[in-house]
């Protein structure tokens, strides 16, 4: 009986390892290829003989990228827009999600759907009215305006995801705390937040990535170098009569780096902040 259980566990561990290896390969291969491509000279990319390992390794693509595309400015803009979006979305959105998860009130279900309306209505038709709204608010071609636009599109995701995470936490825990004399706010802070920690991190990662990568609205709502974001800069490298594979893949690789650094910082401080609260309280 006991050895049988152990055999099952070993079997599942092996299966797990096999799955992880396969999925990791699937996930990483295109990125490895992007990286290899970024080290090649153009003639070794557009060639009839496939080169797996670049024969002539060059960093020219990275240099060209740095010199040409106003990269630092674009990435700074992207980081600012992403941070603003994440902050507004997560603070306002999680509160609403908590309320929608814990309280029963009139039109609650309809309200949940209302949040989704924003995302259900095709962006194609939202662009021009949104353009006009931002113009009237004087926020066209500004980083804050773009963050505001993103917030409206990402807030529903935040609300829906966070509601899911809140729903997953048993209500009894909170009620127990309230019997001990906590206010609702205190219970939210001490009991619920620590439990949805991974949900909060996951949702903010989602929102961060979504706003970091967004293209269409960034293109339409900004024009000047001072507020344009990195994906627009990346798209602009794809010329009408030129598709510089080397530079584009270098751009792809570079665009992964800041977001990994950014999230490793955010994620750590987010977890630390919340766990600290839980322990002390």
């Amino acid at each position, binding site marked *: 009986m006991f050895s049988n259980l152990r055999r099952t566990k070993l079997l599942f561990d092996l299966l797990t390892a096999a799955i992880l290896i396969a999925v990791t390969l699937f996930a990483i291969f295109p990125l490895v290829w992007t990286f290899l491509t970024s080290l090649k000279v153009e003639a070794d990319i557009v060639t009839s003989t496939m080169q797996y390992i670049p024969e002539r390794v060059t960093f020219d693509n990275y240099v060209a990228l740095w010199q040409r595309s106003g990269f630092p400015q674009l990435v700074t803009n992207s980081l600012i827009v992403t941070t603003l979006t994440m902050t507004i979305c997560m603070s306002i959105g999680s509160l609403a999600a908590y309320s929608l998860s814990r309280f029963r009130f009139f039109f609650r279900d309809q309200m949940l759907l209302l949040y989704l309306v924003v995302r259900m209505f095709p962006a194609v038709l939202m662009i021009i009215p949104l353009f006009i709204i931002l113009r009237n608010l004087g926020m066209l071609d500004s980083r804050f305006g773009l963050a505001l636009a993103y917030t409206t599109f990402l807030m529903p995701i935040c609300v829906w995801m966070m509601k899911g995470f809140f729903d997953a936490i048993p209500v009894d825990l909170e009620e127990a705390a309230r019997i001990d004399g906590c206010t609702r706010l205190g219970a939210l802070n001490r009991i619920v937040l620590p439990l949805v920690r991974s949900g909060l991190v996951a949702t903010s990662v989602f929102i961060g990535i979504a706003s970091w990568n967004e293209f269409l609205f960034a293109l339409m709502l900004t024009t*000047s170098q001072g507020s344009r974001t990195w994906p627009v800069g990346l798209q*602009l490298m*794809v010329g009408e009569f*030129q598709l510089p594979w080397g530079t584009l893949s270098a751009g792809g690789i570079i665009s992964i780096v800041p977001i990994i650094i950014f999230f490793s910082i955010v994620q750590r401080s987010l977890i630390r902040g919340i766990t600290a609260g839980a322990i002390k309280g």
Partner: protein
Amino acid sequence: MRKNSRISSGLSRRQFLKGLGVSGAGLMLAQAGLMRLAAQAGSINYWHHFTSESEFLGLEAIMAQFKERYPDIDLIQENIPNADFMARFTAGVLADTRANVSMVTTERLADMVAMEGLVPITDRVNSWELREYFPDNRWTGITVDGEIYGVPAFSFVDWMYYRKDWFEEAGITPPTTLDEFRAACVALTDPAQGRYGFGMRAGGGGQAFIADMIEAFGSPLVVDGEVAIDRALAIEAMDFWSGLYKDGLVPPSAPGDSYRQIMEGFKTGQTGMVWHHTGSLAEIQAAMTPDQFGTATKPTGPADTLTRTSFLYNGLMKDENADAAWAWVSFWGENDPAITFLEATGYFPASTAVADDARIAENPIYAPAIVSAAQGKLPPQFIGFAGWSQEIALPAFQRILTGESTVEQAVDEMISGLADAL
């Protein structure tokens, strides 16, 4: 401090203009420029779809020259990817956040004017001292109902690239008619070596060839705002064009091949001929040796040429600050900027004064372009052309290639789709 710098720049500007009087046109312009300078100040926005590195270097060089001439004009360039250009333009017009100057192409002109996105500049053009260097066909492509909406900046002349070495090997010369073209495709195609005669563009952008073919076989598309496609001729045209694919003379990837793919096919030795225009010369030159490729005029169809010459224009989107905007728009027509741009990009100038320049006239690689430029037609100009060719004509043609419809069905779709678009 600010005042001082303005005075000193004014001085250098005068000195600069004095030194400029070399060519007749230049002198004339210098004088005219001096007279107008007072009115030209302020800030103007310029929307364009230059994106590639060489185009961007060319634009920056022209902007630097412009700044030297008009130091009081602040020119702000804003680049928009070509694929999204009309979306951005539309939003700008609808929300009334227009730029001062926008790039305009002939294919888009009708749509842009119809949505009231451009301001006519007929009077300015007619009193422009450099107008004589731009023959009438330059203006036809930017005229709607007798009003001129822009100034030609440069041009793209259709031509063909071919593999010199393959042609020598097969003992043939560049084809001049479509029959010869097909024969050349047959001669060059060798599946065993992975070689195909021609790189057909039937993916994105391939719509242009459909309109070209139908016209080259003798059928107009639209006459007086009515559908004028001759069904029999259009079927003949599409039969010929899709026949190249069905007979295996072009790569099997053709239905998905866009500009990038046909050029990569040519560069990697998969295809022996590709059709494009002078805009891609720099790219081909960078990738291939002079022994490998040559340029030639495109073959002519049974009834009409397949060659088009299109001009890229700059036009005004609003009246505000129009003098400064006109200064920028007309600046592109001058010799120096045009040559600067040619050197950076290889893009053909629109002005005849520049086209006679030794750097172009004496370069053998450009010879076919000079011939083509003389006989090239302008792209179709009717409202709805872009939408029809992209949404109806191209998918219909692709379905012939993939075997989902017959030539007749596809042509019928094109005709009824055109009626809806008009």
